[in-house]
C-alpha cells in the first residue's frame, strides 16, 4: 500500500486522481465543461449557495437521516455491531437526491434553463425529475429501452413529476447508452442545457462535484457515531456501481487510518464467468477511457465496451467513478463483490430481521456485511450505507423467487 499524507486532496487541477479521471470529451463540450468547473468553484466559495443547499437538504430531503443500530441483525450475525445509514429515508427513497439538489442549484446559478439526465434503474431519473418539478425546469431523462421495460414504476413516477422520458434504443439500451444519448443531447444544446450526472463519474469536475454533494452522508455518520458511541466507526461498507453513495460515505473518513472501507461491486452470476456476467469493473475489468474519464472498465481485448450484468439495474454499468479506481490502486479502499444470489439473500434477510426492504443495490453492500460481521469482535463498529429502499425492486425480486405478482 502506498502511504500518502492525505487521500482527500484530489483531484488535481486537470481532474486527475492519480492516472484516473480527466476530461475526455469532444471539443464542443470542452468550453462548457470548463464553465461548469468555474461556476462550481465559485458556488462552493459562496455561503449563500451552501446555505440554500443545506436548507433544502433539511426541509425538502429530510436530512439528517438516522444512523440506526441494526440490533436484530447484529444479534443474528453474532459479531460486529452493525449500523445502517438510512439514506433510503430521504425524499424519493435514495441518496441520489443529495446530488440533484446541489446540481440543480448550480444549473440555476449558471442561468441554464433546461435539464437533462441519464438513468439506469430510474432512481437518479426520479430524483432529477423531482428537483426539476421543485424548481420549475423542463427536464428530459434518457433511459435505455431495456431498463424502461424492467423499471416501469419509476418511468411512471418521472412522468408524473413532469419529466419527458426518452427511450434510448441505440447500443444495448441500458445505462451506458442512456449516458451516450445524454451526451449527444448536451453537445447539441450546449447553450441552455445543464447535464445532471447521477454518479461520481464523467468528465472533471463531475466526479469531484458529485462526491462533494454526497459527502453529506459521511459527514453525518461522523457526527452521529460520535454522539452514539463516542468514537469513529471501525469499518464502512457501501455498494459500488458508479460509486456515488460509496464515495459520499468514504471521503470524509479517508484520512482516518483506523477506519477500514469496503466498496462492494456487483458480481452478477459470478466474476469467474467473465465480463458479460457481472458488473464488477475493478474486480473484473481494466483501465480505459469512457464517458469523459479514465477508469476501470469492462471491455474486450479491442477496447470495445462490454455490457455488464447485475440483478440490480443501478449497478449495471461497465465503469466506476475514477476516484474509486485510484483508491483501489493506492490500496486505501478494498473492493469486494457480491453475486446476484448473495444480494437476493441479503435483501430477504434485511426485510425479515429489520423490517426494512433495501434496494437491491444496497443489498450488495449488506451481503458483504453478512460475510464479515460474524468474524469480527462485538465492539467493532460497522456502518452500512443503506443507499436506497427496495420498493422499486419487488417485481424483479418476485420474479427471481418464482412468485407471480
Amino acid at each position, binding site marked *: 500500500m502506498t502511504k500518502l499524507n492525505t487521500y482527500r486532496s484530489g483531484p488535481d487541477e486537470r481532474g486527475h486522481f492519480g492516472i484516473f479521471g480527466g476530461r475526455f470529451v469532444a471539443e*464542443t463540450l470542452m468550453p462548457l465543461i470548463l464553465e461548469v468547473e468555474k461556476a462550481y468553484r465559485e458556488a462552493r466559495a459562496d455561503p449563500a449557495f451552501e446555505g440554500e443547499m443545506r436548507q433544502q437538504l433539511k426541509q425538502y430531503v429530510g436530512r439528517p437521516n438516522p444512523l440506526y443500530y441494526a440490533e436484530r441483525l447484529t444479534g443474528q450475525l453474532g459479531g460486529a455491531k452493525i449500523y445502517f445509514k438510512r439514506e433510503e429515508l430521504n425524499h424519493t427513497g435514495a441518496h441520489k437526491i443529495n446530488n440533484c439538489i446541489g446540481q440543480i442549484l448550480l444549473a440555476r446559478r449558471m442561468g441554464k434553463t433546461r435539464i437533462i439526465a441519464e438513468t439506469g434503474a430510474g432512481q437518479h431519473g426520479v430524483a432529477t425529475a423531482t428537483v426539476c418539478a421543485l424548481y420549475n425546469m423542463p427536464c428530459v431523462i434518457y433511459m435505455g429501452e431495456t431498463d424502461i421495460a424492467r423499471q416501469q414504476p419509476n418511468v411512471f413516477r418521472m412522468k408524473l413529476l413532469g419529466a419527458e422520458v426518452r427511450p434510448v434504443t441505440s447500443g444495448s439500451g441500458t445505462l451506458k447508452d442512456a449516458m451516450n444519448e445524454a451526451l449527444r443531447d448536451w453537445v*447539441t444544446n450546449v447553450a441552455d442545457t445543464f447535464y445532471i450526472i447521477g454518479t461520481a463519474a464523467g468528465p472533471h469536475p463531475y466526479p469531484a462535484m458529485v462526491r462533494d454533494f454526497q459527502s453529506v452522508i459521511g459527514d453525518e455518520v461522523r457526527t452521529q457515531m460520535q454522539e452514539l458511541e463516542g468514537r469513529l466507526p471501525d469499518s464502512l461498507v457501501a455498494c459500488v456501481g458508479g460509486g456515488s453513495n460509496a464515495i459520499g460515505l468514504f471521503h470524509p473518513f479517508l484520512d482516518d487510518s483506523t477506519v477500514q472501507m469496503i466498496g462492494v461491486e456487483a458480481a452478477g452470476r459470478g466474476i469467474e464467468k467473465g465480463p458479460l456476467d457481472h458488473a464488477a469493473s475493478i474486480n473484473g475489468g481494466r483501465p480505459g*477511457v469512457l464517458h469523459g474519464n479514465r477508469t476501470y472498465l469492462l471491455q474486450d481485448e479491442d477496447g470495445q465496451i462490454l455490457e455488464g450484468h447485475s440483478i440490480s439495474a443501478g449497478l449495471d454499468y461497465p465503469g466506476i467513478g475514477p476516484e474509486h479506481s485510484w483508491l483501489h490502486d493506492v490500496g486505501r479502499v478494498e473492493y469486494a463483490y457480491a453475486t446476484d444470489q448473495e444480494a437476493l439473500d441479503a435483501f430477504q434477510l434485511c426485510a425479515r430481521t429489520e423490517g426494512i426492504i433495501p434496494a437491491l443495490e444496497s443489498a450488495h453492500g449488506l451481503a458483504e456485511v453478512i460475510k464479515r460481521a460474524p468474524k469480527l469482535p462485538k465492539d467493532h463498529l460497522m456502518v452500512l450505507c443503506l443507499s436506497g429502499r427496495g420498493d422499486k425492486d419487488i417485481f424483479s425480486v418476485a420474479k427471481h423467487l418464482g412468485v407471480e405478482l
Partner: protein
Amino acid sequence: MKSADVLAEGRIARRFAALKAEGRAGLVTFITAGDPDPTVSQAVLNGLPAAGADLIELGMPFTDPMADGPAIQASSLRALKAGMTVRKTLEMVRGFRKQDADTPIILMGYFNPIHAYGVEPFLADARAAGVDGLIVVDLPPEEDEELCIPALQAGVSFVRLTTPTTDEARMPMVMRNTSGFVYYVSIAGITGTASASNTAIDAAVARLKRHTDLPVAVGFGIKTPDQAAEVARVADAAVVGSAIVTRLADSLAAGVDGAAAVEDVLGFVGELAKGVRAARG
C-alpha cells in the same frame, strides 16, 4: 513549429499543396472501416480515390460513439458485428496502400480502442500501415499528452476538431499541436443531423484562417453535392460522412448485392466530387 516540420513533407501536406495548385477545394470522404463487412468495406475504400475523394477518413468502429448520430452509430455496430478491430482496420489501410501511395488516410474514432491497443504500438503500426493522421473525438487539447504529442513525435498528424463553441480565448490552445489540417465541426451537435448556414460557415472559416496557416476542412451536416459545393467555395475541403455511410446502408438494406452497392456508393462520391470540383469554376 517542430512537429509541423516533421509532417510538412507528408501526404496530407502534399495533397493540400496540389489542391491549391489546382485552385480547388478537396473532398474528404468518411467511411467506417469494416462496414458492413471487411470485403465490401475494402472495396469501397480502394475505389474512393478514383471516384474523386481527395482525402479519406477511415472510421475506427467503437461501441460507444458519443459524438455520432444514428447513421455512424449504426455503421459502427455493423462493423463490430462483422468482427472489425483496430488491428483489422490497420490491415485495411495496408491493403489500400498496395494500390495507392498518395491519397492521405486519416483514422477517425474514439480513444479507448487505441488505449487498449497501447499508444506506442498503435502509432508505430499505424505509421507502418500508411496512416497519415488521426482524429480522436474525445481527446481535447487538455489531454494532449495522451496521444497528440506522442503522435506528432511518431510522425503522425493529429487533426484537431474546432467547433462553434471554441471561443477566441481557446483558439490558440486548440491550434497549438494541430497538424495536417484543421477540421471545423460546423454545428454544435452530432454527426449527420443539422446543417450550418453558408454565412455561418463563411464567418467560421475566416475566423479560423486568422488563427492558422493550415488548411481548413469543414464537416458535419453536408449531405448533398450542392451543399458540398457551397462549402468548397470557402473552405479548403468539404467532409462528407453520414450521407455516404447512409447511402451504403440503404442499398444493402434494399437487398442490393455487395458489388452493386459498392458501385452505387462510389457513384455518389463521384457526384460529391463533381460538386466540389465545380464549386470555384
